[in-house]
């Protein structure tokens, strides 16, 4: 085995450097001889080249711009900016402060959008979910948060797309209301299995009633009718039949009252449960 001159030069340079850094040997006196002083494995023949050429780019550290892209590009005057922050914040960590700010923001936006019924309904739905989370926290149904995020995303779509047709907006709202109803139903069932009491079965139907009622009016109508079959109502709702906005607003108010009363009932039940434990 013959070392090439330049390899020897490199070896000696390295050895010298290491000697400078670490000294001649180890701490204890009388260095023990290595078992084998020479490298036994065969070195490959190589051409010698002291300076690496530009072509020898094996691993290059590139200065990549970090460039974090915020996909949303929220402008300063975006009305839902604060609410968005709060929804993301709640998704990340549920704190009293975040929930309180969330509900306060909902109230504020309700004033802003008081003349826009669909957006108002979205906000009321979000508010209702917020109250539920605030009341139940860790005992909230796991799906609540998914529905919260989904409802907010649809609200964003409606707010951003100014030229979206009303029917489309109602469709989006309807889909979210459906999920909300399903959640309500699941929560009720959960309560029913935990507590041997009469489950609150009227809620979903009544909820449907309140939502569907205005749709029965048609373009000329006023007053309210209670539809007879839930499935048929769903179909009609999904089909996006025209509604009187004023009646929708009334329905929303009723819905709000109903939710509050249900929440109070739930709170009462919880208190009884806790006492019995």
């Amino acid at each position, binding site marked *: 085995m013959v070392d090439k001159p330049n390899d020897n030069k490199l070896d000696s340079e390295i050895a010298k450097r290491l000697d400078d850094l670490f000294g001649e*040997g*180890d701490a204890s006196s009388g260095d023990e001889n290595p078992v084998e002083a020479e490298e036994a494995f065969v070195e490959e023949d190589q051409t010698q080249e002291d300076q690496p050429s530009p072509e020898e780019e094996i691993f290059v550290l590139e200065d990549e711009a970090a460039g974090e892209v915020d996909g949303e590009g929220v402008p300063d005057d975006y009305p839902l900016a604060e609410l968005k922050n709060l929804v993301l914040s709640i998704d990340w960590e549920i704190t009293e402060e975040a929930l309180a700010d969330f509900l306060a923001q909902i109230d504020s936006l309700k004033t802003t959008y008081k003349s826009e019924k669909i957006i108002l309904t979205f906000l009321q739905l979000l508010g209702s979910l917020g109250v539920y989370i605030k009341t139940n926290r860790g005992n909230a149904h796991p799906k609540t948060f998914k529905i919260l995020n989904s409802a907010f995303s649809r609200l964003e779509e409606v707010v951003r797309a100014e030229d979206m047709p009303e029917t489309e907006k109602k469709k989006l709202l309807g889909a979210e209301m459906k999920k909300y109803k399903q959640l309500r139903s699941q929560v009720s069932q959960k309560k029913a299995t935990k507590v041997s009491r009469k489950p609150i079965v009227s809620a979903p139907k009544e909820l449907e009633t309140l939502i569907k009622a205005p749709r029965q009016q048609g373009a000329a109508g006023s007053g309210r009718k209670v539809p007879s079959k839930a499935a048929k109502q769903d179909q009609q709702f999904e089909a996006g039949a025209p509604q009187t906005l004023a009646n929708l607003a009334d329905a929303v108010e009723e819905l709000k009252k109903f939710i509050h009363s249900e929440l109070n009932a739930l709170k009462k039940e919880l208190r009884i449960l806790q006492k019995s434990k």
Partner: protein
Amino acid sequence: MAFVNLKNKEIQVKIVYYGPGRGGKTTNLEYIYKKFRNRINTEMVTVKTHGDRTLFFDFLPFDIGVINGYDVKIQLYTVPGQVKYNATRRLVLRGVDGIVFVADSMAVRREKNVLSLKNLQENLANYKKSIFRIPCVIQYNKADLFEQGIPLLPIELLEKDLNSQLKRPSFKASALKGTNVVTTLKKIISMTVASIKRDLK
């Protein structure tokens, strides 16, 4: 794989101390760190259990200065030796350029040495690296225990078990006392840097 920064003219070299649990890998690094603190300006990082067993790795980086126009930075790592930490060992081996196999000279650890070497071979293969090609130095640690009357494996047996096929430079050492710790280190650094230089060509 050595990390070469052509812009800053810098090479980072990763050397991993491997071997069975309680064999002296961490002690090697601790000795180096203690002895050369005034010359090595960096801190040693250890991620260990409350019982002082390496949990993730020990890490000691230092600069050996400019060689052939390149600033050579050495990164010494140890792996956790306990059998159950194989996934972690594999992780630490990623991108390794040179290996110090720290064998335990105690007679009772004979089998553990062999299993650990086999484990090294398997984990290297995971990264498509061969134990026969990668720069490697073998250290037969705990040579000092002989003075205490603890049965040690004779060098010939250790060589037969661990180095008969690899045929790598090997040293009897005592990491606790520092015997041949630096010699081992110098050897693996020079072998590894030379190997990287050849790969760069």
